[in-house]
């Protein structure tokens, strides 16, 4: 079904492309929002990726690779948004916190709100490279090789970025845990 739509869109069928965009836009927006941590930038990146897809669709030789190709365009768009963000101000400091589900102790899927805040703080300290690899691996479920293909970098680099990113996230959690223990005045 999707392959048919892709082929029709590749042939210039605007309605077919609209169908593809309608099916993909929500997911693309979520991925961009996870990477950029800013709803406005995520919206811009998603739009940019969809426009780029339409402009360059004639060059997509294998319709079955439409999804991976679209993710590549989205990641490129996220990089551009992040660069613009740096020109506007620091991405790390001046973004508004994402709206999160309200809960007294535990959020969705059983994650403690405090842990979620620690993860959020750790994630915001990562650069876009590292954020992207984390999102592709842990949210989209890409293997390291698949992520490497989509990102256009060697698998070793993906592995390295993933390691650094997860190490930073772990450090964020553990640093907060240590702070809590220190504040409570007892050794860990």
């Amino acid at each position, binding site marked *: 079904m999707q392959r048919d739509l892709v082929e029709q869109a590749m042939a210039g069928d*605007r309605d077919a492309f609209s169908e593809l*965009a309608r099916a993909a836009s929500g997911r693309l*927006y*979520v991925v961009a929002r996870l990477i950029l941590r800013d*709803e406005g930038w995520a*919206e811009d990146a*998603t*739009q940019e990726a*969809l*426009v780029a897809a*339409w*402009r*360059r*669709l*004639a*060059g*997509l*030789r*294998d319709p079955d*690779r439409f999804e*991976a*190709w679209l993710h*590549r365009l989205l990641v490129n768009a996220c*990089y551009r948004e992040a660069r613009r963000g740096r020109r506007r101000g620091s991405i790390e400091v001046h973004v508004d916190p*994402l709206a*999160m*589900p309200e809960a007294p102790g535990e959020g*969705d*899927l059983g*994650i403690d709100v405090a*842990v979620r805040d620690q*993860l959020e703080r750790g994630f915001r300290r990562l*650069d*876009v*490279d590292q954020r992207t690899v984390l*999102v592709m691996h*842990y*949210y989209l479920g890409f*293997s390291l*090789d*698949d992520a490497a*293909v989509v*990102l*256009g*970098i060697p*698998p*070793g*680099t993906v*592995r*390295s970025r993933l*390691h*650094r990113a*997860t*190490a930073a*996230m*772990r450090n964020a959690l553990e640093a907060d845990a*240590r702070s809590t*223990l220190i504040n409570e005045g007892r*050794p*860990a």
Partner: protein
Amino acid sequence: MTTKRMSEPDFDDLLTAWFEADALVREPEALLDDALTRVDRSRRLPAWLLPEWWIPMQLTTPLRAVPRLAPVLLLIALLLAAIVAIAVVGSQPRLPDPFGPAANGHVAYLSNGQVYAANPDGSNPIQLTFGDGSASTPVWSRDGTRFAYRLTGPTSNPSNMSDSDLVVVDGDGKNPITIARGAQDISPASWSPDGRWLVYARMDGDYDQVFIAAADGSRPPLRIGNPETVNWSPVFSPDGTKIMYFVGQEGDGIGVMNPDGSDGHILNTTPFESIDSATWHPDGDRIVVAAAGATEATDLWILHVDGSPEQRLRVPGQAEVGPSWSPTGDRLAYLTSGDGVSFLLHVADADGANERLLPGIYGQINTSWSPDGTRIAVVNDLGSDVRLTLLDPDGKAEAIVIEGVRPAKPVAEPVSPTAWQRVAP
């Protein structure tokens, strides 16, 4: 003071759950309409402007026989075959030496899961692999007569796209030999200088391990190295007497061992938190590594095979990545980045002195010298257009820009040193 460290699976589950919880949002209502409005205003690039359009899509489609023409076609085919046979028999192809500079042959690159090769100026692209599955990591033998590549699904295992075969073919893509079948996470292969052996890494149990295999498929692959450590990305030294490999799950060190797996040891005494890349010097006596300590940016390190203390090459205030030696080993190309997204290309002497900045901004972290040392290849993929740029290391000749060399399947192979075919001068 210590805190309890979360186990790896628990931490992975936590990250996944956190992302999933964070993803429970709806896109803004106007997003799609706004995007489609912009689409309506956008010019659709015609196919002929996109490089992939010039590569035939149906090269594998068999010709439909026309009965009355069949005898004529058969005669023509026989004549052509005779001419080709005479040409092949009458010519003795010269091969490059396995060491040192060579002339520039084809540049291999990927498009839509197939291996292509083009002249170094991007002209005359030809498709070298066909069929189902996705080809990647083409690596030419040192004499340029064959290449090895990874073939991922569906031939290996239709239900698991991460399983791959390691395949060797002639330079024209023919006579495939499957060296390894259905292996998980196969690394790019490395050829021994005499072309008889290949080393590669793949998952073996829970960890990556190094394997050596006969390039003609005559012997099954053999695991080498210490099975107690994670070993990956092996590369033969230029003279074939050593194999360099990454040690540790994330690249804690650079090890060297003999091709039979003996005498494996780690070269660096400085602990590395991560290693981005490592490349042999053409003399085989040292390795340049882009690596980072626990709290530091990535720097270039020279590791000596004889055990001499490593040297650190630094550009103050910047991270250096993607180093490569010139074919003669007297110069080094590398990239620096201030923001981790865009990179500047530098050339320096082998010891880091006389650094020169070359023009352009790039979005990939690999550099590669052409076999004759007259060009450095680097990829710019900062925009949606992907360009392979070939620069004169002396900054005199104009840069050659190959547009869209890997238009629909972005990978880093176009700038891998092994993507350049070496041919006799």
